[in-house]
C-alpha cells in the first residue's frame, strides 16, 4: 500500500514518542491515522501498520477487532455516534437515535454486536450507539465525525442533520 508522504511522516513522528524497542506502542496512533485517512481499516492498512512497526499482522488485527473505535467497514460521509448510556437514555437518547435514522434514511434493523454500524442508502450518513461520552449532564449527546453535540433531543435532530452537507 502507498501512503502519502505526509501520513508517513506523521507515523514516524508517533513512533518517536515511544522507546526504540517499544515501537508496538504506536499501533493505536497509526491505526487512527489510517482510519482518519481512509474511513475504515482494511487488510492492507493492517499489513502496513504491522510492517511499519515490525510486528505480526495478527497483532494489529486483534486490536481492530477489539477496540470499538476502529471500523472494518466503510462508514458514511458523516459518521454519527449517539451516546446510549444511562443519563443520556434517561434524557431520551433512544428517541434521538430513532429520529436520526428517520431523518437520515438509515435502517438499523440489521446491526449487531459485531456489526454495529448502519449506513444510509445514499452513503451520506452512518450511525452507531456509543457508550457514555462523558457529558452526562447535557444529554442526549452525540459525535458527528469529530464534532460534539449536546442536548440532542429528537426535536432538534433535523436541524442538526441539515448542517451536514
Amino acid at each position: 500500500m502507498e501512503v502519502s508522504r505526509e501520513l508517513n511522516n506523521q507515523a514516524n513522528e508517533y513512533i518517536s514518542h515511544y522507546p526504540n524497542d517499544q515501537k508496538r506502542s504506536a499501533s493505536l496512533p497509526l491505526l487512527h491515522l489510517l482510519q482518519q485517512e481512509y474511513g475504515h481499516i482494511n487488510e492492507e492498512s493492517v499489513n502496513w501498520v504491522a510492517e511499519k512497526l515490525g510486528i505480526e499482522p495478527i497483532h494489529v488485527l486483534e486490536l481492530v477487532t477489539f477496540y470499538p473505535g476502529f471500523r472494518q467497514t466503510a462508514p458514511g460521509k458523516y459518521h454519527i455516534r449517539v451516546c446510549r448510556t444511562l443519563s443520556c437514555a434517561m434524557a431520551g437518547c433512544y428517541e434521538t437515535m430513532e429520529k436520526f435514522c428517520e431523518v437520515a434514511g438509515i435502517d438499523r434493523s440489521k446491526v449487531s454486536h459485531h456489526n454495529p454500524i448502519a449506513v444510509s442508502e445514499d452513503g451520506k450518513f452512518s450511525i452507531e450507539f456509543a457508550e457514555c461520552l462523558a457529558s452526562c449532564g447535557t444529554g442526549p449527546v452525540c459525535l458527528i465525525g469529530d464534532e460534539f453535540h449536546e442536548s440532542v433531543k429528537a426535536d432538534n435532530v433535523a436541524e442538526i442533520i441539515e448542517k451536514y452537507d
Partner: protein
Amino acid sequence: MAAPKYIKGKEPHKSEYRMIFRNVDRRGWDTSIKSYIADGGYKDLKKALKMKPQEVTDEVKTSGLRGRGGAGFPTGVKWGFIPPNNKKPVYLICNCDESEPGTFKDRYIVHQDPHQLIEGMLISCYAVGAKVAYIYIREEFPEGAKILEDAIEEARKKNFLGKKILGGKFNCEIYVHRGAGAYICGEETGLIESLEGKRPYPRIKPPYFPAALGLYMCPTIVNNVESLCNVKHIIAMGGQKYAKIGTPRNTGTRILCVSGDVIRPGYFEVEVGKITMGELINDVCGGLRKGRKLKGVIPGGSSAKVLRAGEKYTIGTGESERTIGINEIPMDFDTLAACGSMAGSGGVIVMDDSRDMTWILNNINTFYAHESCGQCTPCREGSLWMKKITDRMVSGSGVPSDLKTLTSVGDNIAGRTICAFGEACAWPTQSFVAKFPEDFKKHTSRRNAGKELNPESKAAAAGLKR
C-alpha cells in the same frame, strides 16, 4: 490575581469552591499559554523545581490528597511505592479515559484548561523521577487531544517542557496517546497494556502493581486528570494548608458531576464532605421536577451501589455514631463507603419516582456486557447473562426466578476476577435487585407477561428540560 468572572448563565453555584475548575466557563479565558501565564500559571512548577523531589512528594503526602479516578487511594503514598533501589526508567501516565458512566469532569479540564494539567503533570514527574509521561485520552475526545498537543507545544517553546527545563537539570517529555473507545482502558493495568499496543487486558495484582511493574515492566505512576491538577495547588499553598480544605481524611475539593432527574444537572466543585446529598440535589441542582419524589441515587459513577430514598445509614463510631437518611449523607469518600456505596468517580446519577429500576439496571447491564474485556469467565459470561435477564424482563418475558438468578450471578462475579471491573459490573445488579425488589417483581408477574413495561416514556424524557 483577580477573582475570575464567569460566562453568563454558567456562574458557579454559591456553595462551590472553585480551585481545579477556576478557569472553566471563565469569561475572557482561552486555552492559550498566554492566558495561563497571565493568570500566574507555571509559577508552581518553578517553585517545585527549587524543592527536592522527595520534598514535593512529602507535601502531597501531607495534603492527604486521595485519587480522584475512582478508588480514592492516597496519591503521595502511591508515589512512595516506587522501589527505592530502582534503576529502570520511571513513567507517569495521566488517566484521561474518563469513561465511567455519569462522570464528566476531566473533559472540561482538558478542553478548557490544558496547561493546568500539564503543569500538574510536570511537577508530578519531577517528584517521582519520570522523564517521559503519557496522557492516555479517550478517543471520543478528538478536540481535547488536539488542544493538549497544542498546549504541549506552547509549553515546550517556553522551555517548561523538554530538555533542561527552565535552565535546570530536569528533562521531561509529555505525549498524548489516544485510546480507541474501550471502557476497560480506564483500568490502570488495562490502560498500560493498551499503551503498549496490545488489547487492554488488565494484569493481575500482585505482582503487577504499576508502581513497581508498570509500562514496559518499569515503575509507573498512573493518576487521574483531576488528581494531577490537585498537585499543582498543593505545591502552591503547601500540603498543610491544602489539608485544611475539605474535611479530615477527605481533604481538598472534588468535582461532583450530577446527571439524571434534577432541574439543573452539571459539574460542581465543592469541598469534600462539606456538602450533603440533599444540599447537592435540592439546592445546587435545583431539586427534582415538579411533583416528583426522589427514588434513588447512584453516588459515584454507574458501578457504585445504588442508594434508595428512605434508607437509613449508621455512620461514625463510638460517640460520634449516628443514623442518617440519604439527604444527610456528606459527600465524602469515607461516609459513602460507610453507607455501603462509594464516592467513586464523582458521578452522581439521580432517579425520581417516574423511573423503573429494571429499565435503569438493564441500561447499566448493557454497558458492562459490552465493555467486559473477556479475560475472566465470571465477568465475561456473567455480565452478559445479567444483561440477557434484564433484557427479557423489560421486554415482558421475565419469570419469577429471575430475581434470584440475577443476584446469584452477581454474587459469583464479585471477588472472582482479575480486575475490579468484576465488582463494577456486579454491584449495580446486586444493589438494585436487593433494594428495589418490587420493581423487578413487576416484570415477572403473569399479569404483565408479553407487555413491554417501559415507563421511560417519551414524556419522562421530554420533561427534562435541557
